[in-house]
């Protein structure tokens, strides 16, 4: 009976390799769409697992571990890799087989990792990935010799090509047939000292020299591209152009699909409006569910376009170059060059941005990045900006076809960036005054053509994560807000709008004295609360609060007109200033808490953003009022 269960039980295989060795591409190729992305308990390192079946019909559970140069882990990512390989990760069974991946075009660091992993004592197989690129460059690898030197099976693989992983699959299948049982005895690995690392690298270099023949003419494509992209002047200009193109795409390409999603939800609202009788249920479905979730889902195209750029640049090998170019500039503000990628992601949403800080080894640099990432103007602020700017800022050309509205929007983005740099500068100069800067050490991988399949998988994952969030957190918050705004029902013969009798109105009136100095009335105060779930919900909430009926599109337009009648220009500008900092985003705070492992840092983030929001809104309101805009 034991034999039967042993033959059908899924075999645990862990995928280990250096960063940039094409490990994720190989994972995608082996598992296809059978992937699950989750978090390891307690840390926000993404846990990626997928499945495939060997030729014998044995199911395999493949665990994709974060890339590392050594098991001597430093960053949270690398700690996960070490603990998973050693079988010390809580809630995770030790892997039965290690599938090592090395970049065939540059084997020496990969081979050293293999030598280190051999000490763990588990069965191993080495995949020489990107074998096609190596062959194309004339790098000739004696696979038999390499296998003999390493004492483990070695197979070439091409993750991005169909059938490029067949040999690897066959090898893994063979090894699974004869896997020894996982022994309970402690493994032979201990953190290597410097002398051991030196010795391992020398041994790795010897093995590579013995089994790899380098081409007579080295490949110069990467060097020639870098001559431009890493040029101090041209490289910086290209980076700026890439960023400009990216933002242009996020705002223009995303418009048609966003309009389509909006129209879809409007139609859905019309249908349910016609089907359901007037009353609480209709209000719940119409205003709460469709209005609320629709207002958030509209941002899916923008987020996907932003991630398309980020994934493309990453796959191409450009992201590390961007960090290289930005290191000095960001270093002046106390940020690490590697913080560039997380901060860039934060323009879509601070949450993936904060999660991307995992690549930063040093805790101090990571914290600084996490604390300023929410100051980058995320796409959730866009609807709030658009609403207020559209209503209060005249749409006239200032100079050269630049509109005043566009200028204000640009100004809000710049304010966000400048304050992020300012805050990190203060952190560096005041809080961490006595800590010298962390080193900047980053591999610049050779350029390669992005793989359509990889990009597709990446986008699909991002879409899933976003939709899950919209379907859970945001949906729940919308139900709560709808409840607060609708309960209790107005008494018979009420003269005021229904919301004036609700719990929301009471909360708003309660907050009024505090927020009056910044020019906010109780309606705005109420809208700020749902903004806790997601900033963009504030727009929908303002709509609910001002008791306006109609489709989403119409609400936005009419809402603008209503606001012009109800608010002074000073109030509108103060709200814009508030939203540059807008601390209220529960998911961001939750992510910061998880990522930093402490409530304290989330509280610090909330407090300092609240102070900045209040302070700047106060200053803007008072100055604008004094200038006669009150």
């Amino acid at each position, binding site marked *: 009976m034991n034999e039967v269960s042993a033959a059908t039980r899924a075999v645990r295989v862990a995928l280990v390799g250096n960063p940039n060795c094409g490990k994720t591409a190989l994972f995608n190729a082996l598992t296809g769409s059978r992937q699950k992305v989750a978090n390891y308990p307690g840390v926000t390192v993404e846990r990626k697992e997928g499945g495939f079946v060997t030729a014998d019909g044995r199911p395999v559970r493949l665990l994709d571990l974060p890339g590392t*140069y*050594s098991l*001597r882990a*430093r960053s949270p990512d690398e700690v996960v890799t070490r603990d998973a390989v050693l079988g010390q990760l809580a809630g995770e069974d030790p892997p039965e087989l290690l599938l090592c991946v090395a970049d065939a*075009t*540059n084997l*020496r*660091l990969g081979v050293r990792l293999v030598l280190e992993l051999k000490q763990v004592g588990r069965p191993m197989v080495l995949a020489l990935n990107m074998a096609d690129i190596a062959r194309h460059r004339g790098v000739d690898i004696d696979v038999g010799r390499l296998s003999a030197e390493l004492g483990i099976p070695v197979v070439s693989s091409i993750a991005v090509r169909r059938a490029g992983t067949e040999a690897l699959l066959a090898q893994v299948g063979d090894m699974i047939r004869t896997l020894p049982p996982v022994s309970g005895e402690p493994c032979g690995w201990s953190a290597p000292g*410097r002398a051991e*690392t*030196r010795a391992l*690298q*020398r041994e790795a*270099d010897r093995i590579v020299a013995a089994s790899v023949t*380098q081409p*007579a*003419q*080295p490949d110069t494509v*990467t*060097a020639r591209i*870098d001559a431009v992209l*890493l*040029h*101090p*002047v041209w490289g*910086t200009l290209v980076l700026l152009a890439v960023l400009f193109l990216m933002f242009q795409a996020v705002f223009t390409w995303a418009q048609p699909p966003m309009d389509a999603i909006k129209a879809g939800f409007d139609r859905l609202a019309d249908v349910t409006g016609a089907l359901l009788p007037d009353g609480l249920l209709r209000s719940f479905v119409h205003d709460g569910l469709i209005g609320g979730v629709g207002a958030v889902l509209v941002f899916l195209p923008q987020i996907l376009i932003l991630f398309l750029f980020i994934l493309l640049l990453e796959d191409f090998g450009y992201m*590390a170059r961007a*960090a*290289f*170019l930005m*290191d*000095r*500039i960001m270093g002046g503000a106390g940020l690490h*060059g590697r913080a560039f990628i997380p901060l860039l992601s934060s323009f879509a949403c601070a949450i993936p941005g904060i999660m991307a800080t995992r690549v930063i080894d*040093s805790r101090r640099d990571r914290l600084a990045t996490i604390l300023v990432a929410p100051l980058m103007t995320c796409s959730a602020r866009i609807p709030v900006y658009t609403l207020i700017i559209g209503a209060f800022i005249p749409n006239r050309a200032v100079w050269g076809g630049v509109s005043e509205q566009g200028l204000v929007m640009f100004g809000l983005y710049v304010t966000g960036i400048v304050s992020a740099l300012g805050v990190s500068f203060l952190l560096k100069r005041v809080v961490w005054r006595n*800590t*010298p*800067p*962390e*080193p*900047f*050490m*980053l*591999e*610049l*991988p*050779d350029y390669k053509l992005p793989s359509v399949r990889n990009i597709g998988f990446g986008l699909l994952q991002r879409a899933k994560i976003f939709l899950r969030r919209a379907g859970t957190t945001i949906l729940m918050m919308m139900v709560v807000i709808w409840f607060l705004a609708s309960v209790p029902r107005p008494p018979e013969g009420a003269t005021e709008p229904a919301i004036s009798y609700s719990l929301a109105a009471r909360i708003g009136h309660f907050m009024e004295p505090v927020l009056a100095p910044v020019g906010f009335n109780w309606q705005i105060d109420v809208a700020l609360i749902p903004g806790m779930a997601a900033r963009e919900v504030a727009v929908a909430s303002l709509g609910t609060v001002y008791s306006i009926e109609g489709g989403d599109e119409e609400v936005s337009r009419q809402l603008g007109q209503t606001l012009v009648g109800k608010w002074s220009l000073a109030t509108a500008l103060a709200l814009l200033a508030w939203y540059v900092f807008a601390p209220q985003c529960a998911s961001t705070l939750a992510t910061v808490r998880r990522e930093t492992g402490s409530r304290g840092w989330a509280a610090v983030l909330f407090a300092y953003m609240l102070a900045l929001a209040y302070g700047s809104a106060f200053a803007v309101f008072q100055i604008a009022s004094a200038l006669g805009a009150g």
Partner: protein
Amino acid sequence: MSISLSVVSLEDWTEAPPHDGTMAPRVTPLGTAALGFTGRIHAVDASACSGVPAPAELEHRLLELGFVEGATVEIRHQGLFRRDPIAIRVNGATIALRRREACAIHVHTTEPRTPGTRR
């Protein structure tokens, strides 16, 4: 500030006697070398570097990125401000470092690369 420091240490190194034998080339810290420098690693030793991470850790991280004694290095690129950071080609891989950390890598000059030689 870091520039003046670098210059001082560069002078220290160039005025130091050759490491071994009379024909041995001069050993300099990679962090002070100019763009286009090609050479071979003589020693990876961060004991003269203060700061974060601790010298032993910095040395270990450099080793893990493939900076070991005997490896060939070439400074391929440098940043806009203060010629920092630098991109170093080391035995077929390109690694970006700040000049400050690169000072832990002591190199001696070899003849500039000619077409056809192995990198």
